[in-house]
């Protein structure tokens, strides 16, 4: 099993979610996060006072899938989230040792 963690532009969330539904992803965890990469921050201007805002708002998605569809999920996210401009985000993939459904105690792929 793989965990796919994607940092994307917030306005792309709905599009990515819809595309992931189509390829059979059954659950997504989403959080609003802030950070900076190559895009860096932006400046805000209040009555002439300029403030540099370092951290930009992004959305982080966490998805656990079976190994066989992991690559497909990654491709789906890339296709849906890409604008071609700086700041589109990143995807991290790592192995997951176990998954447990709390209600039933099921483990492994049954619990996904």
């Amino acid at each position, binding site marked *: 099993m793989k965990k796919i963690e994607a940092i994307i532009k917030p306005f792309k969330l709905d599009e990515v979610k819809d595309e992931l539904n189509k390829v059979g992803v059954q659950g997504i965890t989403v959080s609003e996060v802030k950070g900076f990469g190559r895009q860096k921050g932006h400046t*805000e*201007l*209040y*009555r002439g006072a300029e403030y540099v805002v370092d951290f930009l708002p992004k959305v982080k998605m966490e998805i656990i899938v079976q190994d066989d569809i992991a690559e497909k999920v990654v491709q789906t996210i890339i296709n849906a989230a890409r604008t071609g401009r700086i700041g589109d985000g990143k995807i991290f993939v790592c192995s997951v040792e176990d998954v447990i459904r709390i209600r039933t105690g099921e483990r492994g792929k049954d619990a996904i």
Partner: protein
Amino acid sequence: MIMRKYFYAVLILLALMIFNTAGVFAEEAPPAPAVLENAPVPVAPAPAAPAPPKIDTGDTAWVLTSTALVLLMTAPGLAIFYGGMVRKKNILGTVMQSFIILAIISIQWVLWGYSLAFGPDRGGIIGSLDWIGLSGVGLDPNPDYAGTIPHQAFMIFQMMFAVITPALITGAFAERMKFSTFIVFTILWATVIYDPLCHWVWAVGGWLRNLGALDFAGGTVVHISSGVSALATAIVIGKRRGYSMESMAPHNLPLTVIGASLLWFGWFGFNAGSAVSSGALATSAFVVTNTATAAAALAWPLMEWIIKGKPTVLGAASGAVAGLVAITPASGFVGPVSAIIIGAVAGILCWFAVTTIKSAFGYDDSLDAFGVHGVGGTWGAIATGLFASKAVNSAGNDGLFFGNPSLVVTQLIAVAVTWVFAFVVTFIILKVLDAIMGLRVSDEDEVLGLDLTQHGESGYNL
């Protein structure tokens, strides 16, 4: 020890109040009825005594409504206009300053403020204490000020002006003033600066009024006085910790926009109410007030758009207030097209003052009380000398553009006098208070915020 000292001070103040009130009651004892026992029986009907001034219900209704509108300008208007612009740890401290001034000056005005400002003249400089505790300020009209409304209606309308003026200054020392010192400062400032200045400009016998200076609704009395005092305050109290090093961005601009909108709304009472009647003059003042404000609310963000690339919401709200300030002294004397020019210039001038002059000199006028009220008020007072027209108000005068250059000179004198008086006396008051009580909260309290350290509360418990 310090607490005890305050306690005694409060006791003495209370004692003074009670003493004064007792005196007032004595004076209010009804005069002996003029019975006819000594009067000769009239042979022919005596010539009719001059009819007592008659109360006009329409005028009274408008002035009382305007009074409530001007109250709305201070709280919640100004309170949240300023409250949205500070950091979130200071919103309660900022809102509280406006709110508590409303309470303090309401009492000060009844006890001695109105008497000093409008009481019987003493040498053109100050009102006497004859009207202390509103003694003799009754429900019959006072034709000196407003012949068609009860004297007390005029008094309470003026009270709301006395309330908002010190509240405007709070923008300069926002986020760092000690609450106890702030209260003492407010009472002293109202008594030593506002009341005399109000007398000079508006009271019968006041020397600036006799000079012919025009100030329809408070350009000098309210806006230059508070704006210039704000500048003195910003200089004396010093910058906020971390000024120009860390972000001091406004924490809630929607609140600021609502506040600016309430100021705009309430200002119809401020300017149109200053006609102290509900007829043509009030309407004219109402129209030019809205017109100038709109022009300024466009001019300020337009400048930002041209120079910096984006029109800001804070700029639009600030521009509106700058326009309101500038049209205030002129509102009863100018026509609508003049109002557009006055407003547009105000928007540009105040934008320039706030974005360029402030950073050039480096004082921390936190919420731009000087940049908006000092600069806008000064422009408005001078503009009155340029654009005033007797065609709008026959009781006014013609300005430079209507063939009378002398009015500009008179206006400049009034502006200069107000600048010097407000700056010097505020400076002295603050220096004295700094030595006795201290102006600023401690560094630690400033970092923690006024909400927690001055009031023991948090603005947001979400």
